[in-house]
């Protein structure tokens, strides 16, 4: 595929922007591709609806917006409701099965779910739910090579939380998706 357009949605404070940043850095700095990451957020610093998008390409990214997504990662019901319609046919949906409960028809897409937040809570740090989800999406939707993702996480999170985040990534990566 020439281009991979990834939309990540949730609410403020979940690390939505950090997730797309880690993804963008993985594919650009560690996989040698090009990526363009843009964000859309409300004026509230926390709690509001939040989404971010990464366009990944072998070539330079000319058009940076995601009108149609190849991959949708949803960490909130609102984000799922809002962006499912822009996921292309046979596009891949990865959602948090505890946070997205009112499901629409998934006939035209490939849906994979993981209780990312619950897994993070089991690890003792709810905050790494986004990294669990990144691991899951790396395995299920091949948004990046796993090695680039691991390096990117290592370079993006505070040193004292590296191990925790690496574990979160592996848990998500190795999780067998529910469809």
């Amino acid at each position: 595929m020439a281009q991979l357009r990834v939309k990540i949605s949730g609410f403020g404070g979940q690390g939505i922007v950090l997730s797309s940043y880690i993804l963008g850095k993985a594919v650009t700095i560690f996989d040698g591709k090009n990526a363009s990451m843009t964000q859309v957020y409300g004026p509230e610093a926390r709690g509001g609806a939040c989404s971010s998008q990464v366009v990944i390409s072998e070539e330079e990214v000319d058009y940076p917006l995601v009108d149609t997504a190849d991959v949708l990662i949803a960490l909130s019901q609102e984000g799922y409701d809002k962006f499912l319609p822009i996921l292309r046919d046979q596009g891949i949906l990865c959602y948090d099965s505890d946070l997205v409960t009112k499901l629409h028809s998934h006939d035209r897409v490939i849906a994979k779910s993981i209780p990312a937040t619950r897994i993070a809570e089991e690890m003792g740090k709810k905050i790494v739910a986004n990294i669990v989800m990144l691991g899951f999406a790396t395995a299920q939707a091949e948004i990046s090579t796993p090695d680039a993702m691991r390096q990117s996480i290592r370079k993006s999170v505070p040193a004292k939380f590296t191990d925790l985040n690496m574990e979160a990534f592996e848990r998500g990566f190795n999780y067998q998706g529910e469809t």
Partner: protein
Amino acid sequence: MRKSDLHGEFFIQGNIACAEAALAAGCRFFGGYPITPASEIAERMAYRLPQLDGVFVQFEDEIASMASILGASWAGAKSMTSSSGPGISLMLENIGLGIMMETPCVIVNVQRGSPSTGLPTSWGQSDMMQARWGSHGDFAVIALCPKSPQEYFDLTVKAFNLSEQYRLPVFVMSDAVVGHMTEKVYIPPVDELEIIERKYTSKKPQDYLPYECEFDAVPDFAKAGDGYRYHTTGLTHDERGYPVMTEECHVKLVNRLINKIKLHADDIIMIEEKDTEDAEVIVVSYGITSRIVFPAIKIMKKKGIKVGYLRLITVWPFPEERIRQLASKVNGFVVVELNMGQVCLEVERCAKNAVTKLVPHPGGGMPQVETITQAIQEVADAR
């Protein structure tokens, strides 16, 4: 001066790339005031300037910020401020002072949806005419429009070079998308960058006149504290820098302030063109919109229409000559911008008999692909 030794390939936000470019270009004074979506520049400067023995001041408002960077420049520092529409509105009077006193400095406008408070967290390109004509009076300005974080870096360095070379405040006109967009940015080692410094006078103090030069030239600079004990003012002034309230002096000064840019426009103007030579329709855009137009161009090319692409990297001075040349060969131009028609007026002025079709959008969103394709079709069908 301690040089910035940050270099390499990074995945960074546009606003951060802009701040790093300023530091690489030698900027060591930043005066600013918080405003969305430009604050990341000030935050980055607050973090980095102390590492490089520079000065960061968060002022009480944008008026003070702008006045301070003029003062710092006269002390010999390369200086910068950044803001968005509402803040730039407050800076305008002192931007005029910077132009009149011929003060090198850089102003970054991360444009948001306007007018008034508008859309603080969203984007627009509606301050293009403000940059051109915002401060009162007649003058020439330079404004550069980056389309990506990498170009934001490159053009901020360029803005410093132009401001030093031509001794005036130079605008970097980005927007909330480019400001917050994160992409791969290559920051070269400082020594590999082309850096232009203002020309300091080699004359002795007793022989020096601060504004002595030819009708289209830039006077040599002397900074405070070097013993020149010169005077400068926002009033109309002669080559001594003294206020002179005569028609003759005013005509001479205003003409020179304009000529030093206008008559060197060819050296300043940067544009990017694709497929313009045999085009029927040329899509004109700048900054973020120059990336939004691609899908529409692709569609119309597939339909068999010869569509050219012209991107203004320098919006001011406007590439009048090039538009005139192209106007004689094409059906017309489609101008796509995130305002209700600003740069379009310039294209129209130079297009003469060629059609000019505007695709306007007030910001906060992007024009639909179909709107752009329709405009291209209309211009292709014209005549």
